[in-house]
């Protein structure tokens, strides 16, 4: 192991803010994950690891969670960190963090018996709860800075203060964000690297050039288009890894509007599944990265099963189904995800596939805001999306298929409008079931039924390879990869 050096990474797009408690965008998480910390981290098998909490325990009945905090931790401005900050953070995040709010709805109360202990009392057992403590899900924010202020306009948002291994130095808007080593980090010897530069390069091709010319050492997943990945990894001293996304397990699918139009017909939806050459897309558009999913749950997420109905590429079958339902050739609109060329090509490929079985597709276009607006207001026939699973079907999957999550105005729920009261009961049961084996049974049943119904067309378990110079060591050690991995990374000279 060696200390020192500087690491240049790409961050794309430029984060709106680095105050992780207020903003949880992917780029914010990636940068601010070095500044802020959660109580726990998760390894690539999604097992909890110490972070701000050095020890933790869950009572037998699953109703009480106790965390023992590290001692001698201080904020970047020198103020000491204590359990008070954790208590404050739970309040802070209740106001500002939707996902946290969801997980904490199962919590009865939180208390801090002493400066280093936190005890959480649950309303009911909630299996996935232990998966909700990493920096992105529950960043701990400094009480001494935020208490009693208007959080959104607090001037310190511009210069975030955390407990993490790196401190904020400077943000040249449109250009780069500079973090530097936290010399007083509570784990001796960490971190190893002196300076981190997160570079903002808006154009994907330029990002590839940046890596090629050696200006940048690390390309996080998705920073360059997939076509460039192979070329870049063939260069000397370049390594790549698909690890570091286990916690998120990004799962891509196409929402099919279950409410109206041809997509309201199950046979049509099944036909769509058969008509799509998903392997082709994986190989051509995604350059072989990723896995064709079998259903709503990612193979990386807990409680996955492949014992479900299969939908291989079979245009003839698709045509049969369409004939059977008497599809009249009404054109359908397809809303692609405005996240770059890969997604655009993907939509084009789907359009072409569906066209071949007689479904006329018109690609709608919209930028991010337009996409949000249309999906959130159900103004679509088919729409691309991908969502994180957060390690547990109860956290990241259920929200997309239960009736209680049909809420106009947000694109992160049951946007397709799938209603199946029986399923809803099973989902509910599975979430609060303390026994993992029983949970598996319940989730298997759920997956089988849902795959039969095809409420959405699952496309791909996305894999975002991280590309980096081979002399950067220990870069990816956790289930959220680069988002908190730089604590342990070091550079070999």
């Amino acid at each position, binding site marked *: 192991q060696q200390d020192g050096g500087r690491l240049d990474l790409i961050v794309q797009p430029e984060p709106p803010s680095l105050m992780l408690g207020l903003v949880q965008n992917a780029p914010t998480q990636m940068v601010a994950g070095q500044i802020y910390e959660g109580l726990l981290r998760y390894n690539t098998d999604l097992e909890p690891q110490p972070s701000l909490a050095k020890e933790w325990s869950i009572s037998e009945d699953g109703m009480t969670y106790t965390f023992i905090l590290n001692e001698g931790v201080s904020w970047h401005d020198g103020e000491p960190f204590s359990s008070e900050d954790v208590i404050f953070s739970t309040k802070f995040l209740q106001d500002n963090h939707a996902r946290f709010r969801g997980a904490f709805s199962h919590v009865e109360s939180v208390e801090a018996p002493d400066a280093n202990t936190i005890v959480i009392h649950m309303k009911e057992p909630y299996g996935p709860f232990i998966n909700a403590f990493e920096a992105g899900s529950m960043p701990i924010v400094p009480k001494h800075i935020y208490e009693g202020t208007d959080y959104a306009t607090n001037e310190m948002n511009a210069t975030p203060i955390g407990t993490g291994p790196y401190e904020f130095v400077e943000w040249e808007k449109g250009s780069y964000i500079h973090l530097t080593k936290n010399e007083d980090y509570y784990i001796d010897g960490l971190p190893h690297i002196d300076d981190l*530069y997160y570079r903002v390069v808006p*154009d994907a091709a330029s990002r590839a050039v940046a890596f090629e010319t050696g200006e940048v050492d690390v390309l996080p997943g998705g920073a360059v288009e997939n076509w460039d990945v192979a070329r870049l990894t063939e260069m000397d001293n370049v390594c790549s890894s698909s690890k570091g996304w286990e916690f998120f397990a990004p799962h891509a699918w196409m929402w099919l509007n279950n409410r109206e139009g041809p997509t309201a017909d199950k046979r049509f939806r099944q036909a769509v599944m058969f008509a799509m050459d998903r392997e082709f897309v994986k190989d051509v558009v995604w350059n072989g990265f990723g896995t064709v999913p079998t259903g709503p749950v990612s193979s990386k997420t807990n409680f996955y099963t492949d014992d479900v109905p299969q939908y291989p590429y079979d245009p003839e079958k698709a045509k049969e189904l369409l004939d059977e339902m008497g599809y009249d050739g009404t054109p359908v609109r397809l809303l692609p995800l405005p996240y770059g060329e890969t997604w655009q090509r993907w939509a084009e490929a789907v359009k072409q596939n569906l066209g071949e079985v007689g479904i006329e597709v018109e690609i709608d276009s919209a930028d991010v805001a337009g996409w*949000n607006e249309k999906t959130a207001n159900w103004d679509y026939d088919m729409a691309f999306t991908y969502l994180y699973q957060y390690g547990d079907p109860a956290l990241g999957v259920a929200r997309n298929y239960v009736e209680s999550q049909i809420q106009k105005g947000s694109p992160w729920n049951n946007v397709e409008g799938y209603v199946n009261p029986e399923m809803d009961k099973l989902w509910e049961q599975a979430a609060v079931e303390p026994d993992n084996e029983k949970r598996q049974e319940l989730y298997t049943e759920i997956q089988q039924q849902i795959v039969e119904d095809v409420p959405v067309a699952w496309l791909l378990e996305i894999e975002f390879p991280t590309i980096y110079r081979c002399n950067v060591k220990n870069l990816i050690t956790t289930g959220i990869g680069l988002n908190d991995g730089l604590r342990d990374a070091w550079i070999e000279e």
Partner: protein
Amino acid sequence: MAIAGAILSRLLKAAITLLAIAILNFFLVHAAPGDPAAVLAGEAGAADEQMIADLRAQFGLDQPFYVQLARYVGNIVTLDLGYSFRQGQPVLELILERLPATLILTLTAFWISLVAGVALGVAASARVGKFTDTLITGTALLFYATPLYWAALMAVLVFSVQLGWLPGFGYETVGSGFGGLARALDILKHLILPALTLGLFFMAVYMRMTRASMLEVAQQDFVKTARAKGLNPATIRRRHILRNALLPVVTLAGLQAGQLVGGAVLTETVFAWPGIGRLMFESLAARDYNTILGVFLVSAAMVIVFNILTDLVYRLIDPRIGHKA
């Protein structure tokens, strides 16, 4: 005194124009689907209604439209461009941070294109119909027809990737610790490719215009007078033809210099140049209303500033302006 008066009246008109532009833009921008709260929530990958409602309230989007408009106009009148909730910073500050980069880029491109364009135009007109002329006009036409972004891509490919001579993107070497002259040189190096690609098109424009204008002025009577005096051709070209031929070029240049500020979006995007064009484009995608409006206003103000500067230059060159009642 007359000049001061004229400028004052221009400024007054400009202020009204700007206010009108601000209002028009306000309508335009708000007509776009989606809003910043939804985008911000959307990027978080998870959001509930409460979060979006909170954000809307925080951004003032829960107010009726006319209240928002009135508040915005009120701010503009007091020269307050508002606050970017997305970026957590006053818009003016945000723009001022980015403006220098844009100005450096566009002004460099502007001067390169103007000086080179005029020089080539003069050279071509001096040898009209000959090979040099054909060569220059042909090349200019080619530049004129080449899409800017394509030229940029090709330039990066050749000079940055293949030859490795120049940095392919960015404003300066990040974290180099350069100061003073070293930093200036560093920025200069980064500036070359974007400024050149941005300048090529305009160079072609100025070249064509200068050439045409030179040829036209050369036909005028006073040139014959100059020749009748026995002046040599070089002097005639410089003193009599060029100065007169520059007048339309100056007009055009002034018009374009202003437009350049807001028009460098493509170059800034391809070269990762941290200017306001890109800020505008990114803010647009994020529906960061105040920032887009701010950038628009500032770019429009730049157009006006450059127009006024052009007028002043014009007055310097052409004594007739300002005297003519």
